[in-house]
Every structure is written in C-alpha cells, then in structure tokens.
C-alpha cells in the first residue's frame, strides 16, 4: 500500500499560508517523500482567500488530487470553503479561540494556535504552532521541522519558532493521539530537490551558462528574475530590471548579439510588448530565450491564476516570418532540462526560443531527483574562429550556407566586425533592396527550420500503446492526465495519452504517426478555444474527437479529467 497524504493550508493573504505550506513541503521532502504542492492566491497582498495544497507520497506525484486529509485553517473562510473537500477521515486544524460557531463534527481538531504562540514568544508565530500541530498529528520527525525552521528564521527568532512548533506538536500529540490514522515516518533517505517551476528554470538557465537576464516584474515569472538577482554577485550574472518589457527583450537581444547567453521572462501582457523584438532576433539571427508564463487573459485577466491561452500567440507572433522554437515543459523537472535545451536551440539556430509555461508549472512545488549537471550540454553552435580575419570584409555575419546557419563572431572579441540589421540585408549585414538578395536571405533563414525540426522531441506516449481514448495534452496538465489514465484504467477503461512538450517546429510526422493508432482523441487544455487541437489540425490535418477545456483559471485535477472522459463531457469541434 502506498502512503499518501493530502494537506491544505488556507487563510488570508498575509497570514503566511505560503510559508507554512512551503515549510511543510520541505520537511516532508527531507523525510524522503515525493511532494506536489500548488498555490491558489488572489491578486492582492492582504486579505482575500488563499490556499496551498500539499500532497506527499512515497511514490512520485505530479498533480493535486481530491480529497483532503488535513485542512489547516488559518481563518474561518478556509473552513467554510474547504471543509467539504475533506475525505472520510479528514481533519480540520484550527484555532478554536479565534474561529467559533462552526457546525460541530469529528473532523474538527481545535488547537489554541495563538495562545501557544504567545507563550512561545509572540502570537505572530501561530502559523508555526500550526505547522508543529500538523507534524504532531502525523507523528512526523520533530527534527525535520526544526531544521526547516532554523533555515527559515535565523538566530533567536528561529529558536522561538522551534519552541512554537514544539508547542503545537506536543498539543496535538497529547490531545489527539490515536484519533487519526495518518502516521508519516521517514519514507526513504532520498535527498531530492524541492523546486518550483520558476526555480527549475532559473537553475536551468544558470547551468546552461546564462549570465544575462533582463526582466520587468510580472506574475508568474518574476521569481526567475529574483532568483537570478540573488545569485548575481556570486555567479556574475548581469540582472537588469528595466523600464518596460520592450527594453527587456531588446536588452536580451543586445547581450546575445554581444556573445552572452541571455534571457528574459514575462507573461502575456509583457510578451505582447516583446513580439516586435522576436522579429528583430529573427532577422538579425540573434539567439534570445524568452520565458512566457501563461495566466488567464485577455489583457490582465486573472493575474494570479493558470491558463494555456497563448500557444498560438507564441507560435505566430511577430512581424514577418522567421524560425523559432516553442518548448512547453510538462513538469517542473522538465522545465530545467528544456531551459538548457532552449539555450542550445537559440544559439545553434540563432533565433528566438520561447519557453512557454503555465502558472501551475511556475508556482507549484515538487520534488525531483538531483539534476546530474554532467548531462547538461552547452552547445553554442557555429562560431567564427577568432583572430582569423585579416580584412574586416572577410567576415560575413549572414553568410549563406546549406544549413542556413552562419558562423557567429562577437563584437570586440576579434577583428571580425559583427554587422547586422533589422532591415533585410546581404551576407555582410548591410541593408539591401533587391529581390535576389532578399530571396537568398529568406530562404537561408527558413532552412534553419529543417535543422530545428530534427531536434524536436516527438510526442510522448503514456499508458497503454493502444486505447479506446487518447488524451492529448501540453504543459502542466501532464501530471493530471497521467493520473486520470490510472483512475480510468482501474475502472477498466483503456485510456492513454500523447503529450507534447516541444511544440514548434511542430513534430508533424511523429504526431501523424502517433495518431494513427488512436481511436477517440480528446485534447485537454486550459483554454476556451482548444489551441492545441487547432494546431494539430493545422500541422497534420487531423481533427480530434473532442476537447476537454477548462478556463476558470484553476488547474485540472486527475478526477476532473477522468470524470469528463467518463461522461464524454467534451466540447465538439
């Protein structure tokens, strides 16, 4: 029997929901548990309603699920809203002194959170008491909790927090021992990493040798910028928060042209302001890695929630035609690896690469096996050999080649002059007007697509080779789809999945092949239009049987998908 426990911490913004949740994740991960945790919060700093869900298991997990085992309610609203999500043995931990008048029930485990916190030194530590209380209820190793607290709070504050956690632990241990069946001991000695998607991307970028990031804050990708900034000094990373996103993309291009691996990160609105820059990267053949974190639109939409509404925008945006790659990691782990791949594709093909993620990938946390950095490839593509230029005219930045790839020289690093232009230009980089040169340069750029397409991974098949129903997905839905397959197969319905993590240049042949064995096909997407379905048809001519769509800003769970499949509750074309 697998061990699996499902927690929720609920409260107002500013109550520390996120920090309790994160510490719980960390403590559980240290005990060898696999974690998947997600965040639900509003676009405000105080008040409103937030929650943080933590799923811990002794086997890998990739989505949040229902029902809850523990609800740590930091305010009343959390009980009102989520008590119904508890499973049969579910437990609500709350402060009976603060929250009164709720319908009685066996699920209510009152803990005097503030009182205990005050005794430990300060009632602001009520959260820490709560954390201790949960640990006590599941009989979890106190040391793990203490470790996490010491890392989070330095010095005397740390000690006070340890005392607060102890108070909570002791209280539940003493008062509720045996009243709950969940006991979490050390699961294994694994020392996994606990990461959010933005952590994984920032780490991937640093591992890939990216030492330049320019970014204007925007949910959900700001943490990438912030993480890189925190390492700027030790890792010699140039971090610029400019006046707007237009500056950000053009700075990224300027740094990449000069020879650095450079990136920017934003979400939909900011990406809008960057699309002119994509074309600039396209025609000047400058690598540029852009992280696009999706949230529900249009325009500002729901700034702190999840969506997959910008796939076609990512693929088709910018003036004119130029090669680009669009990569969409399915998991936090893959976010790391596809970030490294993004830099390689960008530099090999000297063109923009968009790493498109959804808010769920960006802001969820999961445990992953430690990345083997020796497996990270840094391929800078074709470089013009140094010092070889006698006459400046010898080097041609946009030289015509069979692959479409011209060796790069960087300004100031040799005698070769790096000359390029946003106007159509000749091989030397100077602007032109004639049809012949124009054709040559268009065709040269377009030839790069062939090379890129060969590097794009085919769709990944999950579940049985053949099935009645095939779910087709992209982005963070991967985790929920996989578990939906398990749920359905336990019921005897044979379902499998095709998942696309590398979407452009579209792996049309591989997809066509993969679709051949499929019967009923449903895309699963967080949008209202079924963009992946549309893209598949554009690229292969294949029409899916239906679309499972969700556009309320909340992620899919396995149960929601399974249910839609069961009831065939799909949107027809």
């Amino acid at each position, binding site marked *: 029997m697998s061990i699996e426990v499902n927690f929720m911490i609920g409260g107002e913004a500013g109550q520390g929901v996120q920090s309790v949740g994160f510490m719980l994740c960390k403590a559980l991960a*240290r005990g060898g548990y696999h974690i998947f945790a997600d965040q639900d919060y509003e676009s405000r700093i105080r008040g409103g309603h937030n929650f943080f869900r933590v799923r811990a298991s002794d086997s890998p997990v990739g989505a949040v699920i229902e029902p809850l085992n523990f609800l740590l309610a930091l305010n009343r609203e959390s009980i009102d809203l989520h008590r119904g999500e508890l499973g049969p043995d579910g437990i609500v931990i709350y402060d009976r002194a603060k929250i009164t008048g709720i319908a009685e029930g066996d699920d209510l485990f009152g803990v005097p959170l503030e009182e205990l916190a005050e005794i430990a030194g300060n009632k602001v530590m009520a959260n820490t008491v709560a954390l201790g209380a949960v640990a006590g209820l599941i009989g979890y190793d106190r040391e793990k909790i203490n470790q996490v607290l010491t890392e989070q709070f330095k010095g005397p504050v740390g000690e006070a927090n340890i005392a607060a956690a102890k108070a909570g632990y002791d209280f539940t241990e003493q008062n509720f021992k045996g009243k709950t069946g969940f006991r979490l001991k050390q699961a294994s000695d694994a*020392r996994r*990493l606990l990461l959010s998607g933005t*952590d994984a991307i920032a*780490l991937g970028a*640093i*591992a*890939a*040798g990216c*030492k*330049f990031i*320019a970014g204007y804050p925007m949910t959900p990708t700001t943490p990438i910028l912030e993480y890189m900034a925190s390492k*700027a*000094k030790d890792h*010699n*990373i*140039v*971090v*610029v928060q*400019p006046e*707007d996103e*237009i*500056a950000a993309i*053009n*700075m*990224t*291009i*300027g*740094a990449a042209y*000069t*020879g*650095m691996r*450079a990136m920017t990160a934003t979400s939909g609105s900011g990406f809008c302001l960057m699309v*002119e*820059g994509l074309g*600039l990267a396209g025609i000047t053949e400058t690598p540029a890695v852009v992280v696009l974190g999706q949230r529900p639109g249009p325009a500002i939409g729901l700034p702190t929630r999840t969506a997959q509404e910008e796939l076609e925008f990512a693929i088709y945006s910018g003036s004119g035609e130029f090669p680009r790659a669009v990569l969409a990691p399915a998991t936090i782990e893959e976010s790391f690896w596809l970030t490294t791949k993004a830099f390689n594709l960008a530099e090999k093909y000297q063109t923009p690469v968009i790493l498109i993620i959804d808010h769920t990938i960006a802001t969820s946390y999961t445990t992953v096996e*430690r*990345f083997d*950095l*020796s497996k*990270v490839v*840094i391929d*800078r593509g074709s470089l013009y050999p140094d010092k070889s230029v006698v*006459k*400046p005219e010898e080097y041609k930045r946009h030289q015509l080649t069979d692959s479409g790839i011209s060796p790069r020289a*960087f*300004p*100031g*690093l*040799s005698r070769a*002059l*790096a*000359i*390029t*232009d*946003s*106007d159509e230009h000749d091989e030397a*980089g*100077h*602007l032109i007007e004639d049809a012949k040169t124009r054709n040559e340069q268009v065709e040269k750029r377009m030839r790069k697509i062939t090379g890129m397409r060969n590097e794009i991974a085919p769709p990944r098949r999950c579940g049985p080779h053949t099935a009645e129903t095939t779910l087709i997905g992209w982005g963070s839905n991967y985790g929920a789809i996989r578990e939906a397959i398990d749920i359905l197969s336990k019921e005897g319905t044979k379902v499998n999945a095709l998942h696309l993590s590398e979407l452009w240049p579209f792996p049309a042949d591989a997809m066509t092949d993969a679709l051949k064995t499929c019967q009923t096909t449903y895309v699963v997407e967080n949008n209202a239009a079924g963009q992946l379905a549309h893209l598949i048809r554009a690229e292969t001519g294949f029409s899916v049987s239906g679309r499972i769509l969700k556009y309320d800003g909340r992620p899919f769970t396995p149960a929601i998908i399974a249910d839609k499949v069961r009831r065939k509750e799909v949107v027809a074309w």
Partner: protein
Amino acid sequence: MVTTETARVTTADYAGLVPAWCPGCGNFGILNGVKRALVDLSLEPSRVLLVSGIGQAGKLPHYTSGNVFNSLHGRPMPVAIAAKLANPELTVIAISGDGDAYGEGGNHFIHAMRRNHQITYLVHDNQVYALTKGQASPTSDSGYVTKTTPQGAPFPVNPLVLAIAAGCGLVARSFAGDTNHLAEMIKRGIQHRGFALIDILQPCVTFNRVNTWDWYRQRVYKLDGEAGYDPSDKTVAFEKAQEWGERIPVGVIYEKERPTFEDSMPALAKGPPVKLELKASEAEPLLDEFV
C-alpha cells in the same frame, strides 16, 4: 590593409558604403564628425559598436565601419545598454533620429539617463520624421505644419532640458554644419564616464523647410565662447538648455559625473561577462540549497 593593434587608425579605416541620403543632407556632416572623433581617439573599428535605430539617422553605421547593430525604430538604447554590460571593453555609441530617440524611444531615453549607462548617444535632430516623409517629430517647433499636423505641431520636447531633468551626466548640443565642433563633442561624450547625450542640429533639406541650414547657422552660437558659463551648475544649465529661438547654444550644456550603472553591477567584477567560461557545474552548489 592589415590593421594591427599598433597601426595608426585613419579615416580610411572608417570608410563605408555610399550613403543613400539626399544631397545636401545634414547627415553627411554628422557622418564626418563621427569618423573624425573615432579616428582622433585612435579607436579600432573592431572595438567600436554602433547601435542605431530606424530612420535616416539609423542608416549611419552602414556608411562607416565598426561593429553594427541596426535595431528597431526607437530601440537602439536597450540594445546598446546590454551590449555595454556584456562587454564593457567596447566603445558603445547609440545613434537615433529625433523621432527614434524622443518619440518611439522616449521611455528608454529617460531611464537610460537616470541609470547612467556608459553610452554615448548621438541624436540627429532634424525636427522631423524624414524617412517616413515629413511628419512632425517630438522636437518639431510649435506650430510646424505637416501632413499629420495641419493645425501645427504641439509644444515640442526639449531634449536637453529633459536630459538634465532625468539625470544625464553629459548633455551637449552640436550642429551638423560644424564637423570640428561635433567631433569634439562626440569625443567628450565617449570620454565622459556615464551617459552622454549629443543632440545634433541636422538640416533635412527635403522635408524641413523651416529649420534649414541658414535658420540654424543664423542662430547657433558656441557656449564655450560664453564667459563664465559653468556647465556643472545644474540650474544654470537648466536655464541655458531652454534657450531656443533667436539664439541656440551649442556645446556642453551640462556635465557632472556620478556612479554609472556598470559601477553598481557586481557581475562585472571579474571582467567582461562575455569572456566568462560557461560551465554547468556552476549550478552545483545552488542545487544544495534546494535539498
């Protein structure tokens, strides 16, 4: 010609394509000024990066030598800024028209100056959108009639005043008709530690029939001839910068050094970032923090 580190840099090194400008255009004077300044400073073309925008001015880099990034309309500044951060050993010169710099690029202009990047910014100020055939620009004089402003252009932006307000370290004006002066200003700009703006009065003989060669010649006077003018006094500079009309001062209007953006970047401590080795193992200690 084989140029080596020690060879003298000559104007020949700065030869380029034949300009596609109109005969008589003020841009020719600017081109000469740029060449003169770079030769005078003995800068090898390969050590220079010219980043331009789109417009008649933006074509300049093609007509001389050096590394060239001819960017988007209004966007040379962020490209130039990043290039300088990536390789501070480069001499980075950004080149715009008045529309490019103060219209489309206005936001970058303000912020580049306040952050004080180590860039020399040459703005070919012909008070008109020339490449798109003569619409009003942000510096068009009040009442200037064009096809998009038949009722006359609104109140203009004064780039020098704005630059002083935004914290620009070196604020200068020059005139396309005086190559010596211009070359001097460009050199001052390159040598200034921090951001330097050189707004260059540039007659557009085709579209600007108001601010002509003669119009400028009659008005322009040199500030350094002005006894006791102190360009380090911000208030004085603010007043001087507003002078426009009967008399138009050229020269360094304001100069005051302050720490540059580059100074504040810890990343530059180990030399030009572009020269750092890239290795994945660098992330190893970071992984530990996530365990």
